[in-house]
């Protein structure tokens, strides 16, 4: 499958997964996605579950507590929300596994340029994130407590937010300087 077709299929899948509410259809979609993963299934599924675990747990527990208190609890709704998010995450990680954005956007010089900028930012931020993890491990003489983990997570998130905004401004100025917005 070509990268452009892969991207279109993924976008159609996202549209369907967010607009359909039938558990059987979403379940079938997850099975189909799992089958498409092939040998990469354990890795893709592990990434998808890890990516949604914290957020979905908070949402699910909050919903269950509130709906039980109000007497409106629906197990079908819990299943629907979690199945949908798992399907979307699995599709996304499968796409990330197979998809080459440079080939997919090769038809448009502007999109290709944008893809290159995004990719370079991803590589820079990924390398920096590795440095943050190593530095925290290096400084942790004993297993860090919850408060330390929270502080480190918050400081890391704040740093990356500031850096992303600052880099975006700098890139926009560089593109302006090189005449990208002249047309």
């Amino acid at each position, binding site marked *: 499958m070509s990268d452009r077709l892969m991207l279109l299929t993924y976008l159609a899948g996202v549209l369907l997964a967010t607009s359909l509410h039938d558990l059987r259809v979403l379940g079938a979609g997850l099975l189909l996605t799992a089958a498409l993963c092939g040998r990469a299934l354990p890795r893709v599924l592990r990434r998808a579950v890890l990516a949604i675990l914290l957020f979905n747990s908070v949402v699910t527990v909050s919903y269950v507590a509130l709906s039980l208190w109000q007497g409106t609890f629906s197990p079908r709704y819990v299943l629907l929300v979690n199945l949908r998010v798992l399907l979307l995450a699995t599709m996304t990680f499968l796409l990330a596994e197979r998809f080459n954005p440079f080939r997919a956007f090769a038809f448009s010089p502007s999109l290709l340029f944008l893809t290159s900028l995004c990719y370079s930012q991803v590589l820079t931020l990924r390398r*920096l994130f590795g*440095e*943050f993890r*190593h*530095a*925290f*491990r*290096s*400084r*942790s*003489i*004993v297993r860090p407590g919850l408060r*330390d983990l929270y*502080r*480190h997570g*918050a*400081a*890391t998130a*704040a*740093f990356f937010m500031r850096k992303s905004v600052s880099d975006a401004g700098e890139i926009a100025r560089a593109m302006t300087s090189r005449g990208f917005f002249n047309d």
Partner: protein
Amino acid sequence: MIELERVGYAYGGRTVLDELSFSMAPGEKTVLLGVNGSGKSTLLKILNGLIFPCRGRWRYKGREITARLLKDRDFSRTFRRQVVLLFQSPEAMIFNPTVFDEIAFGPRQLGLEDVDDRVRHWAGRVGVDAFLDRPPFDLSGGEKQKVCLAALLVLEPELLLLDEPTANLDPRSTGWLVDFLQDLPVTTLVTTHNLSLGAELGERTLVLSEEHRLIYDGRIDDLLGDREKLIEANLVHRHRHRHDGTEHRHYHVHQWK
């Protein structure tokens, strides 16, 4: 104190370190020279037990450092206190709400009783005692670097690893750091790609080549006289010069700011 035996490291199918063997005695001040991408930071991370060699072995005080050994809580606690690493980017190291908390992080983990005295002592030594109540994120790059240094020295480590410590410093702070490290009674391994600065940071020099191999281990004075070695390590460069109306090219080192 440190012994490396044919250490190699690869990442993503690419060799980052190749067949490195050397040792360091307690109290030695060593400079690790090499161009960007030669593997200096990777070597420091190996020596800090953050990543592990793909080939060969390395020992700290006679014990081979492995991922398994660092899972031993008692050993890890001792190792992390004795071997510390100053990262090139100070932002990667800071996460506490105030400079005081940043420096106190290690001592508090160890449950030491004199945390307050220790923090104030080391903050004074590196010159950040005026900022103790401020968030470290608001400081300049050089001030952050000093806070990180204090946060490591407060543990009274035995091996101090510094990754390009002058990268964020202005000339005055660079001069201060050179003096500070010379007076510090701790075994140090400092990386830099700045040859002229290397001469100020230690007497013994290790040089990593662009092929990620150790191509020199000896006195810095001898290295400075070994033109072939300097060219091989890409530590000197050549470009056009104009002197009194004549133009010529030769290899040379630019002085550090």
